[in-house]
């Protein structure tokens, strides 16, 4: 399988990045503070404003290293995009499917099946692992709802119907999310999902982790030659990476949500690492963000067996493999899109 390479995260907004030979050089106040060989890196995520030299941008575009700029709060700003990968035939087929309701629904259904299946198994895992610590009745009840939801999704005949089922399943799942927080409960509470802005620490963590995940999905899709902006379930909207959002659905709970729960439950992060703006928006301190990124990197290196390919891969490769399988379906190598089903 493709080798999992590292992503370089630049969290200090004053850092300037440039190219020296085959290395990326990080400078702050004109002084070199870091240097990393680029052949070990498949992505650079820069959170800041100082900038990047055009030579480094060119090198990254040529070598297929993704270079993404985020605001300090983790909001996506821009990405460097070189020559389009892959061929126009694949993209045209993708656009055809995207314009065709039935074909789009076929793919979207499998993605949402994956999403609900995986969130169900997040609940089931919690039930299994912590039956002595929590009221499993309520989790069991929600899990059963999700099982029923999986059955109705299989019967869905229209995209709006599917979206409705997905929305309901998501709200059922999030209704017990707080139950799965087992440590630091007085400081990390979850009521409901909110994003713009996140109004509590859990939401701040979820939003930030989703940003990391969506950038992985986006570069995975671009690597295999698909257009990350043309989705099957998420409709086209300028500037929105709809297909990356589609692909992310099935990975949210297993990759991002469980990761956030681990951060809190294993006390890897603390309430003091957040602050609140006057309007209620919760923001992470730089140190917390660093801790999260560091933990994310090690999460990406954990190995699993891919349920469809039955091959051992790292968690960090999952978006790439799913993007590849999607491209193979679009090309007609597979009879359907196989979502990532985890338990």
């Amino acid at each position, binding site marked *: 399988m493709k080798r999992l390479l590292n992503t370089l995260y630049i969290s200090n907004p004053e850092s300037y990045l440039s190219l020296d030979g085959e290395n990326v050089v990080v400078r702050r106040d004109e002084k070199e503070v870091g240097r990393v060989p680029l052949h070990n890196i498949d992505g650079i995520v820069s959170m800041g404003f100082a900038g990047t030299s055009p030579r480094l941008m060119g090198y990254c575009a040529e070598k297929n290293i993704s270079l993404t700029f985020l605001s300090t709060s983790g909001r996506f700003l821009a990405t460097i995009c070189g020559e389009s*990968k*892959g061929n126009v035939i694949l993209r045209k087929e993708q656009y055809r499917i995207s314009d065709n309701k039935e074909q789009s629904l076929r793919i979207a259904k499998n993605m949402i099946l994956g999403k609900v299946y995986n969130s169900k198994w997040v609940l089931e895992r919690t039930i299994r692992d912590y039956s002595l610590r929590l009221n499993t009745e309520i989790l069991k009840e929600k899990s059963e709802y999700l099982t029923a939801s*999986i059955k109705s999704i299989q019967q869905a005949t229209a995209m709006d119907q599917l979206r409705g089922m997905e929305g309901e399943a998501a709200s059922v799942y999030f209704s017990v999310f707080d139950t799965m927080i087992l440590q630091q409960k007085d400081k990390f509470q979850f009521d409901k999902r909110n994003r713009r802005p996140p109004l509590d620490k859990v939401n701040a963590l979820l939003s930030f982790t989703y940003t990391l995940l969506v950038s992985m999905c986006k570069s995975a899709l671009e690597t295999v030659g698909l257009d990350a902006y043309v989705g099957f379930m998420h409709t086209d909207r300028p500037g929105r990476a709809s297909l990356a959002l589609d692909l992310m659905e099935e990975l949210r709970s297993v990759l991002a949500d469980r990761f956030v729960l681990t951060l809190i439950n294993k006390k890897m992060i603390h309430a003091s690492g957040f602050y609140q703006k006057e309007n209620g928006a919760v923001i992470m301190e730089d140190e917390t963000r660093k801790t999260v990124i560091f933990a994310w990197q090690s999460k990406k290196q954990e190995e699993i067996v891919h349920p469809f390919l039955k091959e051992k891969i790292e968690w960090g490769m999952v978006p790439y493999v799913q993007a590849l399988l999607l491209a193979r379906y679009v090309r007609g190598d597979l009879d359907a899109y196989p979502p990532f089903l985890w338990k």
Partner: protein
Amino acid sequence: MTEYKEEDYLMLSGIQHFSFCRRQWALIHIEKQWDENVRTVEGNIIHQKAHNNMFDEKRKNIIISRGMPIYSNSLGTSGECDIVEFHKADDGINLVGEEGLYQVFPIEYKRGKEKEEDADRLQLAAQAMCLEEMLSCQIKEGYLYYHEIRRRTKVIVDNELRQKVYEMFIEMHQMFERKYTPKVKRAKRCNACSLKNICLPQLNSVSTVQEYMNRMLGEDNE
């Protein structure tokens, strides 16, 4: 004889991919996918050396030309020769601005050593056929220079090899026309393929997606 339009020319070096694996060729030349591995990087370095590090030169009886662009109308291909040598010979052809008559020899640089498969020989024969068409001459042989053993191997461009090249290009054009990528056939050679991670040869051995979905979702309904 078929005449191809210039815009339909296929990359000459593709013949080595095509003879190695039809799917690999389609992934590279139709789908425009490429992945580097140790072999491809080595290959690039060797070719760079053959092309750039030396200049065209003339010796007493030999003219050496590096990186010569070539094409063939009847094969519908274009590419580049690493080296073309022109040897002074009585039964040769005349060249513009040169005195005397010359025989033409294409030379292709390769990593590793001589291989059992025909891929390298086919590529060289295709180059010879291009040169024959461009220079209106006859080429009986050429050379493959293998970097690992640092030695030239003579390749006789016989009718059998020419026929194979000719048929292969017809097949390549047909496949390209249909923009068709053949399905996976897992083979031993997959392990040496730089496109393994893009091709996913194991797709061949997995169940259908329908079976996979039934299996995974079915377990829940028990």
